[in-house]
């Protein structure tokens, strides 16, 4: 482990040595150019718009580790891209600063039409705002082959039985899996059928984990049935998102559970491959619960935070103001004029590069509800996004969630593989959770 | 025990022929020593007999049965290796018992045999020791014991004593000889040491460059070498060779002159016309100083070695080195001129071309050549 830390430290030091003496120093993950060359141009656009000398480091892999080791090494950044998952830890370690005052002074960042109160709440603790959202966060949902549904003469499935019938029909007709999913992460739309929410839920001041309650048991059994009949991609425990994407794009599964934004990407890819394709991906809502309520999940938000040791927090704000205004919106979505797109007669036209980049340079959708993407959006995305906005909510994922998740997965997978019943699984989950003091 | 015979045995490794057609017949119970300089093929020949290498051509028979196609273990031969080849992790008992265990003999039988062998070789107190806890001589005895237990038809020894110090070597030599007598087994023993060969063998097979030079009892080889090589190889220090040129023949004797101008008249069976090159051979122990004989030479001493009973004197005769074995009390200084002589009966005449012996004057003069029987004494008594 020491070695890894050392390697990361040296790596970050190497980064920093090139980037001294600029007006603002930023570390970013997805927001930026897709290639080294494009990233350079990306930074130039920021510099042109903010009038600052910008240094924007975009490390390759292991982003979270690089951030942590950079901070631990005392390296000074003005702004860091992170996710809400890390927030608790940063706050506990006093590694980032509250931004209330800075935001209050900025007309752009305090404009609730640009950044909604709800989105700020996610990043706030005890009234202190610890970050600024990077983009609008969608949620995960079942993405189905709408063209298959149509061919099969079925309507959008809305109950577990209807989903089952669809999967079965798809397997019979197309020889595909009914559904491919990636662990427990994305089964929320089906858990919705029994009114169960992911993460932690506080009941009477006690921590509970709904996925470990008896209510959840029938859904695990339902998955076990899917698995037994070959309707569920058996690789679910070890799937990666690229595995799922591959299956979905090669007609090997009727459904994947993934981000709303990917509805558009899937359609875009297949259309680019074959303009006459009948392929049509569509995002669907979760299954309504006993009370008719649909519970879906929002993703962890990607956020910008200012480290406690930042030299020029005010310059970080300048960047964020740019990022949350028109030119920033264009940069985060379409990308760089001349590389990703051109404006011809007032119309935005994507270049080949731009098409490849799929309207995503870190913020495929911006937080502003007023700004309209001049290029429009990819097919199916708006509908999917509307469903997420309507039904999805954030979960409570405290620091102990990583441990809790492991326990849930262990027994949920066993149940989904049919090795134990759903009822046995949730019982075992609760026992382990209680033993490790992860529920009250 | 068994007879053993080789018929035109040839061994090639790829293109290279190592053994060039060897014929040999070995009698039942005979102790045969293969001797020769390194690279002469003596070990290869032994390995062919053992079956560790395949014979390219020819036939090997043990007890009348052709064994060419038999596995080594099926030939009824046991071998003692130069490195002893003891299994390091097994104790003495297991080392000796291994061959019997492999052949799935009953446990009681094995125990009886191992103990018997250990008794013979005085290994009984060492049976539980590992090879690394034994001295060189003890290891050698274990290696021999391992060969004995199987009661083979033929024993093969591959330079078994060369890793031992001089004293032990003498002791082991006698031990092996004693063993041979006791077991009355056919044994083939490979060595490069002619002293070992002389002292142990019933018959010696002198090999050179993959061919047999001569086969005979130690006395035969000593007294009646068939060529320059055998004459030089057997006997220590080695025989002196002096170049001579043939001169006139007087009807009974031919005159030969040395390069130093001296001459000697020798009887020959077939006289030579004109001048031709020959070699005279005379052993160091047959050259006497301060005495007049049939062959008289004057040599210049270059060095001497005092050995107690004898002194070896090294000298030079017209560029040819000459060794003399004189009485121990004689003091010869380097540079000193020495007159030495030899009697005709101690002289051999060799053809300088094919290096074969032409005249063996001991034989010529003493018609009753030495018999095998008389000369066997020193070999077994040693």
């Amino acid at each position, binding site marked *: 482990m020491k070695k890894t830390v050392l390697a990361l430290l040296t790596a970050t030091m190497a980064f920093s040595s090139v980037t001294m003496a600029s007006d603002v120093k930023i570390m970013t993950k997805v927001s930026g150019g897709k290639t080294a060359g494009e990233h350079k141009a990306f930074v130039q656009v920021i510099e042109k718009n903010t009038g600052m000398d910008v240094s924007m480091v975009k490390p390759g892999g292991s982003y979270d580790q690089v951030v942590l080791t950079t901070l631990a090494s005392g390296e000074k950044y003005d702004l860091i891209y992170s996710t809400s998952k890390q927030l608790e830890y940063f706050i506990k370690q006093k590694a980032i600063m509250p931004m209330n005052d800075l935001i209050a002074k900025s007309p752009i960042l305090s404009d609730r039409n640009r950044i909604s109160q709800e989105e700020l709440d996610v990043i706030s603790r005890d009234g202190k705002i610890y970050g600024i959202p990077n983009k609008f966060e969608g949620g995960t949902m079942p993405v189905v082959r709408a063209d298959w549904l149509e061919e099969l003469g079925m309507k959008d499935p809305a109950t577990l039985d209807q989903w089952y019938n669809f999967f079965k029909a798809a397997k019979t007709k197309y020889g595909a899996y009914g559904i491919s999913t990636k662990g427990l992460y994305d089964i929320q739309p089906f858990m919705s059928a029994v009114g169960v929410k992911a993460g932690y839920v506080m009941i009477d001041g006690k921590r509970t984990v709904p996925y470990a309650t008896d209510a959840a048991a029938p859904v695990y059994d339902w998955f076990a049935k899917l698995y037994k009949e070959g309707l569920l991609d058996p690789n679910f425990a070890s799937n990666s998102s690229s595995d799922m994407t591959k299956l979905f794009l090669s007609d090997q599964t009727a459904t994947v559970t993934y981000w709303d934004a990917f509805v558009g990407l899937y359609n875009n890819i297949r259309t680019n491959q074959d303009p006459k394709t009948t392929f049509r991906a569509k995002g669907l809502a979760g299954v309504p619960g006993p009370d008719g309520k649909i519970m879906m999940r929002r993703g962890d938000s990607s956020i910008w935070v200012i480290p406690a040791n930042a030299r020029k927090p005010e310059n970080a704000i300048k960047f964020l103001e740019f990022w949350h205004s028109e030119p920033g919106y264009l940069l985060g979505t379409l990308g760089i004029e001349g590389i990703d797109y051109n404006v011809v007669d007032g119309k935005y036209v994507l270049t080949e590069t731009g098409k490849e980049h799929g309207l995503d340079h870190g913020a495929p959708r911006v937080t502003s509800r007023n700004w309209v993407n001049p290029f429009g959006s990819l097919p199916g995305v708006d509908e999917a996004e509307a469903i997420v906005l309507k039904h999805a909510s954030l979960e409570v994922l405290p620091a102990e969630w990583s441990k809790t998740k492991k326990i849930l997965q262990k027994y949920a997978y066993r149940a989904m*593989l049919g090795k134990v019943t759903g009822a046995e699984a949730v019982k075992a989950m609760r026992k382990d959770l209680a033993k490790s003091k992860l529920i009250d | 025990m068994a007879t053993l015979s080789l018929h035109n045995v040839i061994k090639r490794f790829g293109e290279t022929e190592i053994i060039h057609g060897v014929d040999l017949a070995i009698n039942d119970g005979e102790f045969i020593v293969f001797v020769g300089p390194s690279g002469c093929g003596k070990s290869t020949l032994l390995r062919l007999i053992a079956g*560790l290498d395949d014979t390219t051509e020819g036939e090997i028979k043990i007890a009348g049965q052709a064994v060419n196609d038999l596995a080594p273990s099926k030939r009824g031969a046991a071998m003692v290796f130069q490195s002893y*080849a003891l*299994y390091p992790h097994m104790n003495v008992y297991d080392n000796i018992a291994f061959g019997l265990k492999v052949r799935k003999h009953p446990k009681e039988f094995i125990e009886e045999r191992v103990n018997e062998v250990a008794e013979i070789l005085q290994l009984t107190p060492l049976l539980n020791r590992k090879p690394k806890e034994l001295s060189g001589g003890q290891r050698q005895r274990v290696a021999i014991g391992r060969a004995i237990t199987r009661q083979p038809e033929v024993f093969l020894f591959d330079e078994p004593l060369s890793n031992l110090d001089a004293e032990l070597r003498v002791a082991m030599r006698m031990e092996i000889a004693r063993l041979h007598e006791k077991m009355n087994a056919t044994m083939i023993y490979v060595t490069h040491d002619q002293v070992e060969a002389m002292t142990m063998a019933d018959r010696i097979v002198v090999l050179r460059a993959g061919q047999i030079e001569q086969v005979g009892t130690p006395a035969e080889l000593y007294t009646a070498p068939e060529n320059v090589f055998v004459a030089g190889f057997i006997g220590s220090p080695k025989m002196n060779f002096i170049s001579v040129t043939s001169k006139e023949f007087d009807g009974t004797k031919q005159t030969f002159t040395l390069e130093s101008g001296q001459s000697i008249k020798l009887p020959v069976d077939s006289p030579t016309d004109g001048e031709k090159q020959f070699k005279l051979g005379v052993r160091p122990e047959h050259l006497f100083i301060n005495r007049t004989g049939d062959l008289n030479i004057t040599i210049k001493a270059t060095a001497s070695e005092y050995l107690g009973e004898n002194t070896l004197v090294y000298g030079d005769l017209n560029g040819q080195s000459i060794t003399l074995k004189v009485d121990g009390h004689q003091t010869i200084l380097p540079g000193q001129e020495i007159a030495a002589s030899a009697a005709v009966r101690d002289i051999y005449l060799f053809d300088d071309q094919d290096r074969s012996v032409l005249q063996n004057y001991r034989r010529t003069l003493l018609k009753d050549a030495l018999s095998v029987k008389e000369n066997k004494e020193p070999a077994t008594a040693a």
Partner: protein
Amino acid sequence: MVLLPDAITSFVSFRKGSMDTRLLKKYAPLYVLITPIIIYFCVFIFYPLSQAFYISIQEFGLLGSSGFVGLDNYYTIFDDSDFLQVIENTIVLSLGITFFGFTLPIIPAIALVEITQMAAKRWFQTLIYLPNLFSWVIIIGIWMTFLSPAGSLNSVLISLGIIDAPILFFANEDYARGMIVFQTVWKDIGYTTVIYFSAILSINTDLYEAAEMDGATVWQKIWNITIPQLYPTMKIVFLITLLGSLRTFDSAYLMSNGLISHKITTLALYVYEQGILEFDLGIANAAGVILLIIAISLALAVQKITRNK
């Protein structure tokens, strides 16, 4: 090198104050030669080790130490119900990897000796050594592709009618440890084979010939000569494999998923999770120190046991 003990004595006597400067001068080049190694050990081994221990008794996070906590981190670890599981995983995986990793390579090593055709020998040697050159990412990638539910093996088995549903090699709690052991052994077998192969080549051929004269079969020769003659090498390989297996990380890290992670999370992986993912350096270093203690005790125990043999 023969001079070294003398050099050490001179150094010791110098330390004692008897100041034999003549000796010191005599061995000055030797001191110069070993200095870089001593510095290397200090900088890259002893200093980090002492740091690890130091951090393990601190509350240590992003902003460095926030105070001495004694053995609290160690108590926390042993209180963690996962940790005992982690120790179990580490030991079971280690035993598996060590046992198969030091026995199985004997087979290809012997095969290499027996193959006399040079081209075939080289080919076989290269083939068996190849996995050792791959990084773990590639190793796991290869096997995941080959053994995935839609991979070649499952496809063949299904089309032959041997199985109805694909076997989930990477998502089965019962196979998880076996898969790690299998892949590790597969990766390392070439390396160990080469070690055994060269050891076999140095065995006195007389031993085999003696056994051949005794009528031993191939198996008896392997069992009674090759294997016993390999003992010294096997001891070393055993120790290397054991210590290496305690560090099992890459394979477990890459293969891990929600279903099987509790079976294959090793101490090294636990250290990584605590240190890098959770960035709880106090806990991570405490776990690291525990790993170190286990490794040292095992190494000493193994040495003690094998020395007497």
